[in-house]
């Protein structure tokens, strides 16, 4: 397994990606909003899951930045705040024309999980009086007129567990009808499908969907295709292919041995 993953990484093999309709639903949810729409991005994951989710989170950030959407970042996991910082770094280095406070803002981590979601659907300032730089929300242009997150045009949630997409669906998307898309780990993704399309506008499941999403952005905005950092998930599909193949072979091989030995045992 180690070699199956290591060799393609060193060989830097990249395979073509076919974009699935599910990924296009997520892409369109962001693409079809008029430029400058308000988007809440909640990054509810930690470094342990960043292998699966960080490329996706960065792709969301790049897509929103290209579109000039107003991005409101927050995190419901204690280790999610540094994940948001990585996205802010991306904005600062790749989209220097965007201004903090006018185009993007970051809120600190708050305890309470789903209770935080419930609270900010009613009263944003009840949780976040200040942004993460310690400036009052009333003095920040993009938050001045926001009472609660019902004012958002879209919620993007990148989630590795609880609190995560399920909680956003339960406490924001369903009761208030706020359009929500999710990017989540492979473990969670199948459990999100029943929410589509009414409660969730689309879901990206782990690294495969992230690669498709990157490809979808590349297609519409070719300028990004030359940025190696924006191709991370696609690059990871190389090791993924070999490892998946290995897994299937192992399962088949194991079962052949199982059946052969069972037959012998019976005979």
């Amino acid at each position: 397994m180690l070699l199956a993953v290591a060799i393609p990484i060193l060989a830097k093999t990249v395979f073509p990606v076919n974009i699935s309709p599910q990924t296009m639903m997520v892409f369109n949810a962001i693409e079809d909003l008029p430029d400058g729409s308000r988007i809440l991005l909640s990054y509810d994951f930690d470094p342990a899951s960043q292998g699966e989710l960080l490329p996706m989170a960065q792709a969301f950030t790049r897509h929103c930045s290209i579109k000039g959407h107003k991005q409101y970042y927050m995190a419901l996991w204690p280790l999610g705040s540094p994940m948001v910082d990585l996205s802010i770094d991306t904005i600062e280095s790749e989209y220097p024309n965007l201004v903090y406070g006018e185009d993007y803002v970051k809120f600190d981590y708050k305890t309470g999980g789903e209770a935080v979601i419930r609270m900010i659907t009613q009263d944003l300032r009840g949780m976040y009086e200040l942004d993460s730089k310690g400036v009052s929300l009333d003095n920040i242009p993009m938050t001045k007129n926001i009472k609660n997150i019902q004012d958002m045009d879209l919620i993007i949630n990148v989630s590795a567990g609880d609190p995560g997409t399920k909680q956003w669906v339960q406490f924001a998307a369903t009761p208030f009808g706020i359009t929500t898309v999710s990017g989540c780990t492979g473990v969670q993704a199948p459990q999100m499908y029943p929410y589509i399309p009414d409660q969730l506008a689309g879901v990206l499941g782990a690294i495969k969907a992230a690669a498709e999403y990157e490809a979808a952005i590349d297609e519409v905005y070719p300028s990004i295709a030359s940025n190696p950092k924006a191709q991370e998930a696609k690059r990871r599909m190389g090791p993924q292919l070999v490892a998946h193949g290995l897994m299937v072979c192992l399962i088949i091989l194991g079962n052949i041995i199982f059946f052969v030995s069972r037959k012998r045992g019976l005979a």
Partner: protein
Amino acid sequence: MDKSSEASKNSNTLIWGIIFIIGAIMLVWSMSTSRTGQVWVTPEQHAFTAGADGKYSATDTPSSEDIAWVTYNVVPDSELTQEVIDSGSATLSWSRTIGLWLAAIFTLFILSFLVGDNPAYKFAEAMVVGTSAGYVMVIGIWDVFVPLLLGKLAPGFVQTAFLPGMDASAGTQLLYIIPAILIIMLLFQLMPSGGWISRWPIAFFIGITAGYRMIGYVEADLVAQIKAAIVPLWVTGENGFVFWPSFNAVILTVATLSAMIYFFFSVEHKGLLGKTARVGIWFLMITFGASFGYTVMGRIALLAARLEFLFGDWLHFIPSS
């Protein structure tokens, strides 16, 4: 039994030995050819001068009265040429280089668990527990305790000491004494005999959770799910009946209903009901199969990311991310 396990242990050791030797050779080779495992930084000056209104603004020409400090930015691999080093604008950052090596070594410590439980793994694990618990507590105190509780009880102090941007004009809000007391009561659980005192806040916790969960689940997972499941089995397009969407709608409905019937416990699974439940379990198995595939994909992605760290950031075999 013992012999075979010993043999497999020996072959294991052999394999690991070979891997480590290959790894060491690669490391030496890589160190001799590039700046493996080194982090270079450039300094950046920050200086702020006080205006007439008491507000500070950044300045490029700091004077002695200004507040100034220096931060360091990492030089990416691609920009780290011999010229940059010779010009002296970039310096080797010892703290970051040591950190990088420690990170790599800790990664290998954890990886050593593949050979079996060993002191290196246990050491790394003990560190994980300590640092993450400490980190979470720090974050909780700075992000929540200070602004949301202390900031309400002692706004003046918090404003001058930690959060100058805060609005302290409302003064002390006495209502927030209640959550403060609840927190103190909660900490009584650490006492050997005062455990019952912590039941008050725990009861508050449980009551609130029960209240909002009940609504959330009924609304999103019950009512909205039933609504989403109501689809016509007979799907018509522009030219009348279309087969595949209808087929899918039928399968979807059968899957939902039969799986729900499998979870009926008030009736014996016999006859038609038993058969339906059997179909239900098949659909559940397909569901689990899909979940299995997705989970495996996720686990492999995690490993790929860690190996990229080892090969890229540390060993510089591939461009670091």
